[in-house]
C-alpha cells in the first residue's frame, strides 16, 4: 500500500491540489474577512457549477482526442429552445410546474440534438472535431439569434429561477447538481465500460476499432453526453440569470479547455482524470473570485490565469523529464 500512496502523492493531481491549497491559503491571508467569509464561499459555490459542468463536458470530448468549440452555444441554444417554450406556456396559462417540466425536458432534448449534429458530422462523416464544432458553433449561434432576434427570453416561472438561486442547508442547489453530475461523470469515465472505451479511442482509435469496438457509435454517444452536460449547464445558467440569451457564458469556452488541460487532460486524447479537472476548476474559481475581491484589474486576472496555465504545464514537463532521466 505504501508505494501506492507514494505514487499518488507524486501524481499530477496531487501537485495540482497542492497548488490549489497554496492559492486558497494565499487568498485567505490576503483577504481574511472577505474571501474566507461564509457568504463568499457560498457565492463561489453558486458560480462554480455551470463552469464546472462545461469543463467536464469539454474534458470528456478531449479524452476521445476531440474538442468541442460549440459547447457554450450548445448550452445557450438548449436554454433558448426550452426557455422559449417554458415562457410561452407559462404566459399562456399553463401551470408553473408543467411549464418548468416541459422547459427542462426541451432544454435537455435541445442539447441532445446539438450533440447528435456534432456527433454525426464527426463520427460518421469523419470531419475533424475542431472543424466540425467550429462550424457548429456558428450554426448554433445562428439558430439562437434567429429564435431570439438577439434579445433575451425571460418571463420564467419563479419555480425555475429557484433551481439556480436557492440553497438547501446552506448548500446551493447548483452545487448539489454539480456534485451529482461530477459523481456521474466520474462513474461514467473512470468506472464504466464506455468510459474505458473512450480512453482507448483517444489513445489509439485504430487499435480500438480492430478490437471489435464500434468506434463511431462510441464517439457519437460521447458527443451526445457531452452536449447533455452542456444542456445541464444551460439550465443552471438560464435559471441563475432568469433568462436565456445567445451570448451567455461565451467566455467559458476557452476557460473550459484551459480547465481540462490544467487538470492534466492530454489535449491529444486518452488521458485525464475527473478529479484533475475539478481541481483545475476550483483553482480558476478561487483565482477569479479572490482577485476580484482584492480588486485586481480584470485584465491582470487574465494574465495571471495564462501564467498559471503555462507554469503548471512547465512543471508537468519538468517532472516528466525527471522521471524520464531517472529511468
Amino acid at each position, binding site marked *: 500500500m505504501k508505494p501506492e500512496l507514494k505514487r499518488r502523492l507524486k501524481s499530477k493531481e496531487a501537485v495540482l491540489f497542492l497548488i490549489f491549497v497554496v492559492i486558497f491559503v494565499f487568498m485567505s491571508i490576503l483577504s481574511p474577512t472577505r474571501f474566507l467569509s461564509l457568504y463568499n464561499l457560498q457565492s463561489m459555490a453558486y458560480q462554480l457549477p455551470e463552469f464546472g459542468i462545461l469543463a467536464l463536458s469539454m474534458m470528456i470530448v478531449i479524452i476521445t482526442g476531440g474538442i468541442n468549440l460549440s459547447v457554450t452555444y450548445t448550452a445557450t441554444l438548449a436554454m433558448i429552445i426550452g426557455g422559449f417554450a417554458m415562457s410561452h406556456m407559462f404566459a399562456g396559462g399553463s401551470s408553473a410546474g408543467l411549464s418548468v417540466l416541459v422547459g427542462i425536458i426541451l432544454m435537455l432534448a435541445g442539447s441532445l440534438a446539438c450533440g447528435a449534429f456534432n456527433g454525426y458530422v464527426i463520427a460518421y462523416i469523419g470531419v475533424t472535431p475542431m472543424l466540425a464544432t467550429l462550424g457548429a458553433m456558428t450554426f448554433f449561434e445562428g439558430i439562437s439569434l434567429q429564435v431570439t432576434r438577439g434579445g433575451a427570453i425571460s418571463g420564467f416561472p419563479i419555480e425555475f*429561477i429557484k433551481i439556480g438561486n436557492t440553497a438547501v442547508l446552506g448548500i446551493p442547489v447548483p452545487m448539489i447538481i454539480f456534485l451529482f453530475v461530477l459523481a456521474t461523470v466520474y462513474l461514467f469515465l473512470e468506472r464504466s465500460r464506455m468510459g474505458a472505451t473512450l480512453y482507448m479511442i483517444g489513445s489509439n482509435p485504430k487499435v480500438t476499432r480492430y478490437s471489435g469496438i464500434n468506434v463511431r457509435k462510441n464517439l457519437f454517444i460521447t458527443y451526445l453526453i457531452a452536449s447533455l452536460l452542456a444542456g445541464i449547464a444551460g439550465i443552471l445558467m438560464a435559471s*441563475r440569470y432568469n433568462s436565456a*440569451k445567445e451570448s451567455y457564458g*461565451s467566455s467559458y469556452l476557452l476557460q473550459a479547455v484551459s480547465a481540462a488541460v490544467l487538470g492534466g487532460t492530454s489535449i491529444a486524447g486518452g488521458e485525464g482524470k475527473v478529479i484533475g479537472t475539478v481541481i483545475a476548476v476550483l483553482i480558476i474559481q478561487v483565482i477569479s473570485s479572490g482577485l476580484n*475581491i482584492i480588486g485586481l*484589474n480584470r485584465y491582470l486576472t487574465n494574465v495571471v490565469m495564462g501564467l498559471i496555465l503555462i507554469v503548471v504545464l512547465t512543471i508537468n514537463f519538468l517532472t516528466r523529464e525527471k522521471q524520464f532521466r531517472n529511468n
Partner: protein
Amino acid sequence: MKKKVLAVLLVLMLCISMTWANGSSDKGSDELTIVVMPKLVGIPYFNASEVGAMQAGKDLGVNVIYTGPTTADAAEQVRMLEDLISKGVDAICVAPNDAAALTPVLMKAKSAGIAVLDWDTPADPNVVDLSIHQIDDKQYGEHIWDLLVEGMGDTGDYAIITGGLSAANLNSWIDAGLDYAKKTYPGLNLVTERIPSDEKQQVAYQKTLDLIKAYPNLKGVVGISTPAPLGAAQAVEEKGLSDVITVVGTSLPTDSGPYLADGSLKVGTLWDPSKLGYLTVVMAADFLKGNKPVDGQMVENVGKISVWPDGRTVIMGPPADFTKENYKTFNF
C-alpha cells in the same frame, strides 16, 4: 519537488506584486464604497465613463470601484457582482448586459443591504433603487432618425449597422427609431435588417462596402454603437460617396473627428459618457446619504437633471450632436 514549490512561489510573488502595485487593500474604512460596473471594460465609451466616475469619487470623497467583465457577457457580470457582494460594498451601479439575467444577483445584493442602481442601460425596474439614464431611449432613437432625415431627406433607401444583435440598449434605440420612422417618415425604406458589426470598425467598414454594392440606391446609413458609424463613414469616403450617402450615428467626437472633418460622417450624437459616470456616482452617494433626486436638480459638473414621476428614474439630459464645425469643442 523543490522546483515545483519554487515555481508555485514565483506565481504567488507575481500575484502579490501586482496586487500591491494596484494599491488596493482589504482593510475596511468609513468611506463609502460604490461599485460602478460597465457592460465591459476596455472600450472607449466605458473608458470615458470611468474617468467621470473616478473623478466624482475624488470630488465626493467616496471610494469608487470601476470594474466589469472583459467581454459583454452577462454571465461574467453576474459572477463579478457575486464576488463584489462578498467583498462588501455600499452601492452597486451596473450597466447590465442583460436586464433579466442580473435580477437574481441584484436581489441578492439588496438583501445584503447594498443599494442597487442601474446606469447606461436599465435593469429590472423592480430591483433597482435608482435608475440613471443618459437620455430617454425613445427620444434618443427618434433623434437619430431625425438626424438621418436631415441628411438624406425623408425618402429613400437606408441601412442600419449595429454593434451587436444582442445588445439590449442598442436594440431599444433602433426599435424606437424604426417605430418612429414608420409613422413619421413613411418614405424611408430600410433595405435589410440591422447588420451586426461586432463592435468593430473593421467589420462595419466591410459590411458598408457590401451594402453599397448590394443596394445601389442607398442614401443613408445609421451606425449604432461607437465604432459602427466610423466604419460606415470610412467606406463611404473611400468610395467617394460622401455626397450621396448620409452617415449618422452614435460616436464619440474625438474618435470621429477625421470622418466629420472630411464629411463622410454627417453627424454623430452622444452624451458625454464621463458625465454619465460622474452623475451615477453622485446619485449613488446621495442615495446612500438618504437624499432622493428631484426633478430639475442642478448637479455640479453635469448640469440640470430631470426625474421621472416615479421618483427613481433620473435623466441626464439631451445628447450633444457633433458636426464638422463643432467637434473640436468636445473633449470626450
